C-alpha cells in the first residue's frame, strides 16, 4: 500500500523533472542540456548568450506556467470531486469553464483591438459564472446541497456556452483566432501574465491545503462531518471558491483545459489506490504539473516551428491512460 503510493509520487516527480528539462531544451531551436543548466545557474543576466536568453526569458516562464496551470487544474478537480462527493465534478460543473470561455471570446471576437485583455476577461467571467452558480445554489431553504449546486452549474454553463455560440455565429470571420484559446494552449509571453494572475493561484492553493482534513471528513457523509465539528455547507462553498479561483486563473493563462481537472484526481486515486485527500490533493498537483509540462513540450516540438494547442493532445494522452486505469481498478 505504502509502496504503491510512493511509486505514484516517484513516477509523477520523475515525469515532472524530465518534462521540465525537455521543455527548457526543446522547441523551435534545440538548446543543449548543458547550456540549459548553465543558464539556470547563471540566471541569464546581461552577459547571457542568445541560447541562455531563450531558456530564461522565453522557455522558463512557459514551463513554470504549464507547471502551475497543471497543478491548479489537478487541485481544482480534487477539491470539487471531494466536496461534491461526485466523480464527475470538474471546473465545468461550477460554471467556470463556460464563464472563462465567454469572457475570452468576448474580447477576441468583439474587442479584437484589446487582445491583451483576454486573460482578464477569462478570469473575470470565470469567477462571475462561479459566483452566480453559488448564489443560486445557496439561496433559499435547502441551499448548499450537492444536487442544487450541480444543477445550477450545468444551467449556468449552458447559458455561457450558448452565448459563446451566438458570438461565434455573429463574427464567423474572427473565430479562427479564438480556436487556440478554446482548444487550450500555452503561449510564450514572458512572466507578465503569470505575475499578475499569481495571487489567485496562491489563494486557491492555500484554500486547498486548509481543506484537506475537512474533505476527508466529508467523504464519510455530511452527518459524520458535522459530528466531527465540520460544517458541510461551508466546506462545499469554500472548496467551490478555491476551485473557481484555480480554474479561472488557469483559463486566463492557458485557455480551456478543464478536462485535466476531471481526469487527474481520478488517475491519482486509481493509480495509488487511496482517496485520502492528504495524498490526492498534493499528488494531483504534482501529476497535473507533470502532464501539462510534458504535453506542452510535445505540442511545441511535434510540428515545430508551428505550435499546436495542447488541449487536444492532453485528451489524446489522458483518455487512454484514464480508460486503462478505469478498467484495471476494482
Amino acid at each position: 500500500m505504502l509502496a504503491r503510493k510512493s511509486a505514484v509520487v516517484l513516477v509523477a516527480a520523475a515525469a515532472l523533472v524530465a518534462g521540465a528539462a525537455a521543455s527548457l531544451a526543446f522547441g523551435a531551436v534545440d538548446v543543449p542540456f548543458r547550456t540549459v543548466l548553465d543558464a539556470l545557474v547563471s540566471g541569464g543576466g546581461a552577459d547571457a548568450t542568445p541560447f541562455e536568453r531563450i531558456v530564461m526569458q522565453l522557455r522558463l516562464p512557459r514551463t513554470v506556467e504549464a507547471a502551475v496551470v497543471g497543478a491548479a487544474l489537478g487541485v481544482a478537480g480534487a477539491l470539487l470531486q471531494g466536496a461534491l462527493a461526485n466523480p464527475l465534478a470538474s471546473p465545468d460543473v461550477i460554471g467556470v469553464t463556460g464563464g472563462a470561455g465567454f469572457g475570452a471570446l468576448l474580447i477576441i471576437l468583439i474587442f479584437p483591438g484589446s487582445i491583451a485583455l483576454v486573460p482578464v476577461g477569462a478570469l473575470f467571467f470565470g469567477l462571475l459564472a462561479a459566483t452566480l452558480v453559488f448564489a443560486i445554489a445557496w439561496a433559499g431553504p435547502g441551499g448548499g446541497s450537492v444536487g442544487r449546486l450541480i444543477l445550477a452549474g450545468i444551467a449556468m454553463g449552458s447559458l455561457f456556452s450558448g452565448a459563446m455560440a451566438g458570438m461565434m455565429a455573429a463574427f464567423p470571420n474572427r473565430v479562427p483566432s479564438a480556436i487556440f484559446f478554446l482548444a487550450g494552449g500555452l503561449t510564450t509571453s514572458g512572466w507578465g501574465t503569470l505575475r499578475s494572475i499569481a495571487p489567485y493561484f496562491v489563494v486557491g492553493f492555500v484554500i486547498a491545503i486548509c481543506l484537506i482534513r475537512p474533505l476527508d471528513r466529508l467523504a464519510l457523509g455530511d452527518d459524520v462531518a458535522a459530528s466531527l465539528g465540520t460544517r458541510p455547507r461551508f466546506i462545499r462553498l469554500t472548496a467551490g471558491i478555491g476551485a473557481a479561483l484555480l480554474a479561472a486563473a488557469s483559463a486566463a493563462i492557458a485557455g480551456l483545459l478543464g478536462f485535466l481537472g476531471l481526469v487527474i484526481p481520478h488517475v491519482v486515486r486509481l493509480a495509488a489506490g487511496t482517496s485520502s485527500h492528504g495524498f490526492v490533493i498534493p499528488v494531483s498537483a504534482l501529476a497535473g504539473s507533470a502532464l501539462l509540462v510534458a504535453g506542452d513540450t510535445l505540442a511545441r516540438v511535434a510540428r515545430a516551428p508551428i505550435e499546436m494547442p495542447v488541449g487536444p493532445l492532453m485528451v489524446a494522452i489522458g483518455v487512454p491512460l484514464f480508460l486503462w486505469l478505469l478498467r484495471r481498478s476494482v
Partner: protein
Amino acid sequence: MILEARDVEVAIAGTPILEGADLTLEAGRLVAIVGPNGAGKSTFVRAAAGIQKMQSGSVQWLGTDVRKLRGRKLAQIRAYVPQRPRVPDGMTAREALRIGRSAQLGPLRRATKADHAAVDEALERAGVGHFAERRLTTLSGGELQRVQIAVGLAQGAPTLIADEPTSHLDLGATVIVARLLRRLADDGLAVLLVVHDLALAAAVADTVVVMSKGRSVATGPPDDVLRRERIAEVWEVDAALRRGERGETALSVDWIGERIRLP
C-alpha cells in the same frame, strides 16, 4: 449530567417536526428513544447533537448551551453515528477511524502516536480490529455498522449517539451491536440510542423515552414505560413486553387482530 434537553422544538421548512421533547443523559447510562415512524426521534437526537437547528427549547452539554459550543469542542463531547452514513470508495476501516480521531486534533495538526493508539483501542472496543485494513465497500451491513460506531468511539467523546444502528441488520448482527452498546455504557460512556425494536430497547436501556407526534410522552425504566396501554396508545397495536428470568425480552404482538382505535 452530560446532556439535558428541555422543550426542544424543531420545524423543517415551516413544518413542525418536534413540539416539545425532553431528555437527560448521564455517564454510564444507556437511554433508548422509541416511537413510531415520523414521531421525531431522529430529529430530536440531531437537535440534541447540535446538528439540527432548533426553533426553541434548550440543549445543554455539561451545562453549556449547545448553540454556544463550537464545532471541535462539541465534537469532543459527543459523537453522532448517523442512520445512513456514506460509504466512500477506496477507504479502509482504519482510515475511517483516523478521520474520526481528527476531532481531537487542532487544524493542520498531524496525528501523534497517542492518536494512533486511540484508533487501535477504538477498533478493539468495537470488535472490528480484525478487518481494520479491509475497504468499507467490502464489509457486510453488520460489520459496517460496527465500524461506524468505532469511528464515533475514535472521536474520543464521552457520549455516543447512534440513530437506528440496527434497523437494517439481521438478528445476529443486531445482537452484536446491542451487546456492544450496552458494554460501552457499562464502561462509563453515555449512550443515546434511537431504536424501533421495543424488545431490544427494553433489554439494553436503563431509561426509555417514548416519543409520539413530536413530543416525548413518557420517560423511565423500560418495564414501567413500555406498558400494554401505552403501546396501544402510541403505536395503536395490542402488544405486551415480556421479560424472562435471564433478562431476555420479547414483544408479544397481536399481529392480525383488529387494529386498536382509541377514541
